[in-house]
């Protein structure tokens, strides 16, 4: 049991840097498209690890099921909203950033 617990902790610790990098990207990237990219990519992976870690530490199966449900819902929600934000930005004719 202790092994699973420690494994879970490791997973959570792996997940955290993804969150941090996603947040840094949100703050520092030059335009809306790149920021969206940073946010969704990093956060989804980060959340995946955190959920995995918590599932490993969970004591009951229904907790695991709930965690998976949460993960699934967040995935659906964030991908859909990312798409919508990018679409709105395109419709407003915002040009993607380029190095020039």
């Amino acid at each position, binding site marked *: 049991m202790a092994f699973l617990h420690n494994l879970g902790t490791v997973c959570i610790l792996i997940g955290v840097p993804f969150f941090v990098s996603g947040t840094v990207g949100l703050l520092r990237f030059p335009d809306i498209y790149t920021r969206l990219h940073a946010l969704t990519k990093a956060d989804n992976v980060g959340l995946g690890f955190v959920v995995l870690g918590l599932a490993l530490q969970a004591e009951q199966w229904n907790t695991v099921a709930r965690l998976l449900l949460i993960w699934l819902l967040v995935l659906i929600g964030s991908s859909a909203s990312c798409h919508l934000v990018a679409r709105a*930005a395109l419709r407003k004719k915002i040009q993607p950033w380029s190095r020039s």
Partner: protein
Amino acid sequence: MTSVMSFFDIMLVLALPWLGWRLLASPDLFRAVVLFISLGLLMSLTWVRLHAPDVALAEAAIGAGLTGALFLSALRRLERMQDSERRLDYAEKREEERQAPPARRRRSKPIAYGLALLLLVFFLVLLGWSLVKTSVSPGGLGPAVTGQMGQTGVQSQVTAVLLNFRGYDTLLEVMVLFLAALGSWSLTRIRQPLPEEVAAPVLASLVRLLVPLMIIVAGYLVWIGSSRAGGAFQGGAVLGAAGVLLLLADVTVVRQIPSALLRWALVLGPLLFLLSAIACMWIGGNLLEYPRQSAGAWILLIESATAVSIGVTLAALYAGGRPLEPSALEEAGEVASESGGDEGEGE
């Protein structure tokens, strides 16, 4: 562990006012609203930290989510009326600065302002000092509530206070929501989507996926409210969010709901709550004095009806006005009302 918690506490304590300050200082209204929503989420985290899960649910759903949606929708209305394209671009100079002169330009009476600020600060210091000085009343009404829980018909203390001990408050609160819906209907018509605002197919399928799930969650929240965190307001808020999604995706069925049906759905909760309050008197108790054996059933019935109405009300508030009545009279009235008091008789 305690030091970790203290660190967390201090972060939250500092983050809340900082966000508040940032959002009011931000010259861009859109950003202010977004910051407001994130403040709401932090507040909800704070409620969890302070062991108030019911409040946390309500804050996340109503305080952050729906209020934020209302602000965004109002912002869009205002912008459309101003006919000004607001760019999402970061480097763009904000139009707000030119349109709404920031507080700087108004500083015509710096002395009066300084005095008022001084007074405010003095009062706040006094308040903080008195908070530190005064001993808190031990436990408040907590022990009294615990002592009477057996007679309420529910296990959750918050639900017991909300629906039984102080059910009259909740009755009036449901009336406040009804009043808000009534008021927004009295003020404006529903916002019509512009032709270029075609809903995205992704959104439509998302809505198709989520709305049934949300309805189940709402039912679960109402049901679980009798023993744990949850209840009519949280469930109703989830229903309201489902309604907002439906409106956003512009599902045609939603716009075709007949106005009479909408009205009945809005008043279902308030009316049922009121009638059951009266029915309690009929049975022989005081107002809202449920029969002790079946109190749980009464509360569940009231909560279910109220949750439906709260959901419809919140969605109607987001829709932002009364639906179009088929009668031409209404149309004509609207035109006159929008042209303002031209005939010199509205005093």
